[in-house]
């Protein structure tokens, strides 16, 4: 086990929290899918995320984080999840336009980690994520034709929040502390660029326009919360924390 910098621990914690809330959202929406196949896909993704969280939680515990706290014994404001996952208002289209960018952003952050002892774990997560991200994109493509206005409106909100989660634009090779510490092999600015390029390309030939997306959100780190990886002070609901921690039904708690 290697010792990570404080910034690297926060980085992995934010990815873990995003996966924790993501699994909660997948579970909540898994019966709302347009088709039986959609509901199966959502349930399956939720289970994958739980597996990823368990492994990442063990790594964080090795770095000194308290397991009960990681599992959810904390206030909503202590969760460092991507802001777009705080709540999902809207229908199935809004759900897809929310979980897609959040899941992709979390994977891009994990994929940038350059630690030999995490290689096997990240490869396994990547194999699962291939199917999550491919499913999201395939579904977003069809929804872009069926419900372009709903998808566009949701993306105008969720893409900037996912970008802020990735980190500030000003974090380049010279200034990104996690990259500087050698924990990642590419700075946040590069990850943001790849993320934006992906969605511009995905919707290029669809009726969905990304013209009004704020691609420059969190341009610098002045107003960016480095622990929670966001620019706003929102949070998940108390009820989400209660369900995630399983305090009312220990049978479902992550243990």
């Amino acid at each position: 086990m290697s010792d990570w910098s404080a910034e690297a621990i926060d980085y992995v914690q934010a990815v873990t929290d995003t996966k924790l809330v993501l699994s909660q959202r997948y579970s909540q929406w898994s019966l709302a899918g347009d088709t039986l196949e959609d509901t199966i896909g959502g349930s399956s993704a939720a289970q994958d995320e739980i597996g990823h969280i368990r492994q990442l939680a063990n790594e964080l515990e090795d770095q000194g984080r308290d397991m009960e706290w990681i599992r959810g014994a904390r206030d909503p404001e202590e969760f460092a999840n991507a802001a777009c996952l705080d709540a999902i208002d809207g229908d199935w289209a809004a759900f897809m336009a929310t979980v897609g960018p959040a899941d992709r952003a979390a994977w891009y952050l994990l994929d940038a980690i350059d630690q030999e002892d995490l290689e096997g774990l990240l490869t396994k997560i990547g194999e699962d994520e291939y199917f999550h991200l491919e499913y999201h994109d395939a579904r977003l493509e069809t929804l872009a034709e069926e419900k372009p206005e709903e998808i566009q409106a949701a993306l105008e909100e969720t893409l900037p929040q996912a970008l802020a989660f990735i980190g500030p634009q000003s974090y380049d090779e010279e200034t990104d502390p996690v990259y500087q510490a050698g924990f990642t092999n590419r700075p946040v600015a590069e990850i943001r660029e790849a993320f934006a390029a992906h969605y511009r390309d995905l919707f290029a030939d669809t009726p969905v326009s990304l013209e009004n997306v704020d691609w420059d959100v969190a341009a610098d780190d002045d107003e960016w919360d480095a622990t929670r990886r966001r620019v706003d002070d929102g949070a998940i609901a108390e009820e989400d924390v209660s369900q995630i921690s399983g305090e009312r039904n220990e049978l479902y708690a992550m243990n």
Partner: protein
Amino acid sequence: MQKYDVFARLHPGDDTIHIGNVTAQNERLAKMYAYETFDEEDWDYMAVVAQDDLHEVTGKMPTAGVSR
């Protein structure tokens, strides 16, 4: 929407067998639906085929004028 048949095998060299079907709007989604729906095994190989692309060989009768 189109129906796709799903074929898979567990190990290299095994026969590829029909394991079910999914309904999807396109091939890309059909592949993802198949993976998620039939993930109870660690498949070595899985493929989907649009039912429109299946050409039946059996069940044909000779038409008049065709010798047996």
